[in-house]
């Protein structure tokens, strides 16, 4: 059996077609293009994107930037006034953002080089969290049964552990376990920095995925009952397809929102952990660490703290606003 092409003519000829009189067709533009177009028209989104891009560029080209400006990592305590332990200047031609109290390190250098770890932590951890959270959530919600029970139990379990306190326990242990230090506990700087970052990211991921998983699971449970999912099952779509082609796109909203909330949240958490002394490991320079050590002198030498603080605030704000804009743009329902 097949459908006779003649039928189309009949349909149109019968004059009961309502579609042909609808709004002018918008042929040729893919959904993504349309979304991008909407984004392009969103002024706030553009500003946010510019901010994010600038920071990302800064993180990528950190060495080039500091070379051009002509600052380096070398500390110079002799720049500091020993009676106050503060630099006697805020900004000069050699040090556009001043120098760090006590050590005399160039703050511009620290600012530029502090961006990468912050962004890396945020993006890596958020991405991993997202992948694990979504996979687990989809599996739990879709397969149900014991898979659901096992995953949900883990979610409950991990959510019942106090995250920050666990961080206190895990970071040093990770350092000792995976750092493979020599007898004296020595680990090369590069490796140490890497392990430090990896363990921080792991903690963020381990404690981050459960809530996302819970959210996704809930959404999947309700989506599973939606008629369009039933429809695709009726068409004989295999589970994988139902999961990834039918459900996942509908989770895009919460996922984008979560992603763009998570990145800044993780950046902030890194800063917070640094405040508590368990952030990234030296010699890594990060905004969080700078803020943590600057917070006591924010009155006497404000630039020290406010530059990274405002950077984080800006980045966080830009990311979350941009996230809102993106999920809006990709949501056909909010389209005009």
């Amino acid at each position, binding site marked *: 059996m097949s459908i006779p092409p003649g039928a189309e003519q009949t349909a149109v000829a019968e*004059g*009961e*077609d*309502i579609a042909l*009189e*609808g709004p002018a067709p918008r042929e040729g533009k893919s959904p993504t293009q349309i979304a991008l177009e909407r984004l392009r028209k969103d002024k706030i989104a553009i500003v946010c994107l510019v901010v994010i891009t600038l920071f990302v560029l800064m993180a990528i080209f950190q060495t080039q930037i500091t070379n051009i400006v002509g600052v380096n990592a070398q500390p110079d305590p002799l720049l500091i006034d020993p009676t106050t332990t503060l630099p006697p200047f805020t900004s000069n031609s050699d040090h556009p953002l001043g120098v760090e109290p006590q050590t005399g390190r160039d703050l511009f250098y620290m600012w530029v080089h502090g961006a990468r770890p912050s962004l890396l932590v945020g993006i890596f951890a958020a991405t991993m969290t997202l992948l694990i959270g979504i996979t687990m959530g989809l599996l739990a919600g879709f397969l149900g049964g014991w898979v659901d029970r096992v995953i949900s139990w883990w979610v409950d379990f991990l959510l019942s552990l106090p995250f920050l306190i666990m961080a206190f326990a895990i970071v040093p242990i990770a350092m000792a376990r995976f750092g493979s230090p020599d007898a004296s506990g020595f680990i090369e700087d590069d490796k140490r920095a890497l392990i430090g970052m990896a363990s921080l990211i792991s903690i963020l991921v381990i404690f981050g995925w459960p809530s996302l998983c819970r959210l996704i699971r809930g959404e999947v449970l309700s989506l599973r009952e939606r008629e369009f999912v039933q429809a695709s099952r009726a068409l004989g779509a295999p589970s994988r397809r139902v999961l990834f082609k039918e459900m996942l796109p509908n989770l895009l909203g919460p996922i984008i929102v979560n992603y763009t909330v998570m990145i800044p949240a993780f950046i902030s958490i890194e800063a917070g952990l640094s405040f508590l002394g368990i952030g990234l490991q030296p010699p890594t320079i990060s905004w969080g660490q700078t803020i943590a050590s600057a917070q006591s002198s924010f009155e006497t030498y404000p630039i020290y703290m406010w530059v990274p603080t405002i950077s984080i605030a800006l980045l966080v704000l830009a990311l979350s606003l941009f996230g809102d804009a993106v999920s809006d743009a990709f949501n056909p329902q909010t389209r*005009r």
Partner: protein
Amino acid sequence: MTETNTTETAGVPADEGHLGQRGERILTVKDLTVQFPTADGLVNAVNGLSYSLDMGKTLAIVGESGSGKSVSSMAVMGLHDPQRTRISGSIELDGTELVGASPSLLRRMRSSTASMIFQDPQSSFHPFKKIGPQIAEAYLAHHKVSKQVAMNRSVEMLDRVGIPNPGRRAKQYPHEFSGGMRQRAMIALGLVNDPKLLIADEPTTALDVTVQAQILDLLGDLQKEFGSAIVLITHDLAVVAEVADDVMVMYGGRAVEHGTAHEVLANPRHPYTWGLLGSVPKLSSQGGNLRTIRGLPPSLINLPTGCSFHPRCDFRDRVGEACVTTLPELAVREGDTTRTSRCHLQNPAEIFETEVAATLE
């Protein structure tokens, strides 16, 4: 096991109201215009609507989805957010002008003078609150009585609308009610303050036929008892045929035809009404194609010029330019006495008789 073959005519109730003067004018709507400013432009939901209603009468408003039935009725209840709505014209309810009235006046009128029953009883009750208190709340808003008295009143009302075991039911949540019972409770809520006007916005659309019949009977009984006026909004012309005195057909925010139920449904004058009637698959008919109205409902932001129905009208070529340029008046046409319609056609009655009526059989 109940023997219930009660047979009676569910239609115009007998003339024996005891609440309010029968025939007294309760509602006069004049030149009502309701507009919503939105990001896309001004939505002209209702454009110069006029009608009136007497006590003890039932007016049915029919029309396509989006034709302004609900919006105009909500305006009568003063339920539009004044910050997001522009209303002009006049609504006189029981002698009081409502357009531009203060919020407190509107509040006093709501439920006590006019009350409204909404389409979907499931979503119209607060899901987290018990039915009884929800009804009592309306009573309390207009009577200085204790909570207990109000609760008793709400139980009484539930009993009145035929909910068995009303005392216990009043303490249950909406989701514990069946669809039909929820709609009964909705009616109880509508009547708790003995309003003179009851607006029922698609009260049975969500229900199946047997329950629908129960509800319509109930409304008829209650009207008989209280003599109140009812505005019944519905899509179902068969329902209209059975219960309404008058019918107003709306299209694009305007009334296109207004008359008694018999006049409008048996001898409609407007091509839109013809289309509407043609679309209904009748119990007594079978097979074959249904008549349809081609095209899409009009955009309320850019209403078609002239007669709003002209882009979809099959009879437009018999009139010519006027359909596109001039908005026909809602007026009494040649050969009619009281009924009004809004069409440029010279001889609608004839066209109906000769061309349309046959297709409706």
